[in-house]
């Protein structure tokens, strides 16, 4: 997996993901050094999309593990298929050796990721939501790429997955995990980058409208909102506006109000942005 960050960036852009220089470098190093990459940043800056875009670029399978509080080994690594085991004992009179074989093993994302033929992209999403015990499991897998199942023995990786972890700071991650990973901090994009993203995702959009949309969203992020609109929200809004056939925000303010649901996701934020304030914001960018 040679190449350099520049070509990787261009390739990702071709598949519709606009990556900054730092992110392109981080992905390049993750690929060439074979180390996991930890991507941190606020919600809605495209952390999860990175993995999808990378998988598309490498033409690899994307295996996703969504973390949550209480996630444990039987949901993340493997589990025996007890129902089938019981049935097999009843119906076929299975012997022990067959009972604990691959046939009855339910592969969960982590085991699945290391038993592929071609190296997949393993996305461990929102790792900060899982608890510390799970982080410890993960450390073992990320350093050795092997999993021990007491009934079967140790399964070593057939292909080393490209591992991408995302976090948005629900809690501090352990230093041990951080040390094993490359690190990249993603922030909300600047105007030019965001315009490029919009152009990549919604090619047919009129340039003036695109500028207005991005300007408004960027201005909204500077307001003191509970939940600042991310890139996904911006794209939703653009799709909603173009779906309604609007091509000038300043001309059609009722439509702006009607579609604000795409951008402001809490009642408090809705109240903080009454129509007059929105008008002022749009007036400034139009």
């Amino acid at each position, binding site marked *: 997996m040679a190449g*350099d*960050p520049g070509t990787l960036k261009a390739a990702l852009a071709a598949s519709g993901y606009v990556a900054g*220089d*730092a992110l392109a*470098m*981080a992905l*390049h*190093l993750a690929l*060439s*050094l074979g*180390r996991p990459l930890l991507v*941190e940043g606020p919600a809605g800056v495209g952390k999860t999309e990175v993995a999808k875009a990378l998988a598309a670029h490498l033409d690899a399978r994307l295996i996703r593990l969504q973390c949550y*509080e*209480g996630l*444990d080994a039987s949901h993340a690594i493997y589990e*025996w298929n*007890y129902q089938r*085991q*019981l049935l097999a*004992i*009843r119906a076929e*009179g*299975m012997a*022990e050796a067959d*009972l604990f074989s691959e046939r009855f093993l339910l592969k969960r994302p982590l085991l699945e990721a290391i038993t592929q033929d071609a190296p997949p992209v393993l996305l461990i999403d929102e790792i900060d939501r899982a*608890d*510390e015990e799970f982080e410890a499991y993960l450390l073992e897998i990320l350093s050795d790429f092997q999993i021990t199942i007491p*009934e079967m023995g140790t399964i070593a990786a057939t292909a080393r997955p490209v591992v991408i972890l995302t976090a948005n*700071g629900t*809690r*501090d*991650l352990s*230093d041990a995990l*951080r*040390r094993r990973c*490359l*690190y*990249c*901090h993603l922030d909300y994009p600047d105007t030019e980058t965001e315009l490029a993203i919009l152009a990549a995702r919604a090619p047919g959009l009129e340039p003036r409208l695109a500028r207005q949309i991005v300007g408004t969203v960027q201005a909204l992020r500077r307001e003191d909102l509970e939940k600042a609109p991310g890139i996904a929200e911006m794209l939703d809004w653009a799709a909603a506006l173009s779906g309604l056939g609007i091509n000038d925000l300043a001309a059609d303010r009722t439509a702006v109000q009607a579609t604000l649901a795409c951008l402001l996701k809490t009642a408090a934020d809705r109240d903080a942005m009454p129509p007059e304030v929105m008008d002022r914001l749009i007036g400034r960018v139009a």
Partner: protein
Amino acid sequence: MRATRFPARASGPAERLSGFLAHLRMNGLAPCPLPEALAALAAVKAADPAEARLALKVAAAGDAEAWERFDDLFDAFWFNAGMTRTGTQSAHVQVQTARPRLWQGHLDEGDGHESGGQPEADDGGGEAEGAEGRLIATRRDSLMRRDLRELMDEATRREAERTAEAIARAIRDRRSRRRRQALRGALPDLRRTIRASLARGGEPIDLFRRARPDRPARIVALCDVSGSMQPYARPFLAFLKGLADADTATDAYLFHTRLIRVTAALRDRDRLRAAGRLSLMAQGFGGGTDIGAALEAFAGTCGAKALTRRSAVLILSDGYCTGAPERLAAALARIRRRAGRIIWLNPLLGWQGYAPVAAAMAAALPHLDAHLPANTLAALAALEPDLARL
């Protein structure tokens, strides 16, 4: 831009890079080991400064803070950008603030801002209590040593320990989300049952079950023992002792202008000796408070590093503070990211017409899971259902 002048003995790139990593370390970052940094450089065009910078940034920065500071540190090391070690800078500031007490009365007001923004007495607090002129937050350590033996009589102690146990149980009682095998449980443990059934020719005769084990939350208690808290010191210290005795995992601290860990002293079997040790530790007891600084100090200890989502931080304080409220808020936010819950027990909250308007309290409120009244043992005992619900 000038290039860095390397010491004559710095021969190869490895040595220069190791110097750079040492530079990062000296500035409080925790960079990766040298081989990894070298591997990162080997994977890019290391001669291109922009690429080398990004590659090292990705490899060496571990968190958002390091990510932000990296560029400045990189420029400072490789391009002599005029940055000095921040380590020395802050040491310099500390020297200024630690100006001998003697001078303080003699320096004019204009000099005050030099001392690193030493905050004045809490404005909001001053307003809140101004009418009676009580509970004034001061920066002065009370040099008088107070013997805690007189603060703890047998009856109060017993009552306090009973209360503490009840409260500790209410906070601590947390069922685990995961199931473990158990004699009695709601769900069958299929894995064990099937394994055991092999010995019976496939008949699941021995049934094993799974249940959620109790995994108690850890309590970390921080008790304010400044002058304004004096009337409550007696019940609160006994309460702290009760907490520490109820569970060996509990951690207890006292703070006024400094932070002192008192867990070991509280656990002393010999009650008299425990009281003696405590009173030795509580020198300066009954003076002013800087809650923000105390919490910051706590956040820096290994005690705070051991906090998990399963721990509850209990702060017993009236919120009158001489430190900057922003500092308090920042320290609380830092603790909040590690701990599961922060509960603030405020003796003043029990008073009629009290509102948390003191600047420090107002700054702290957004970071708290609960802000509850506690001025007597009876009031503490009444909190049990509230804490259980959190």
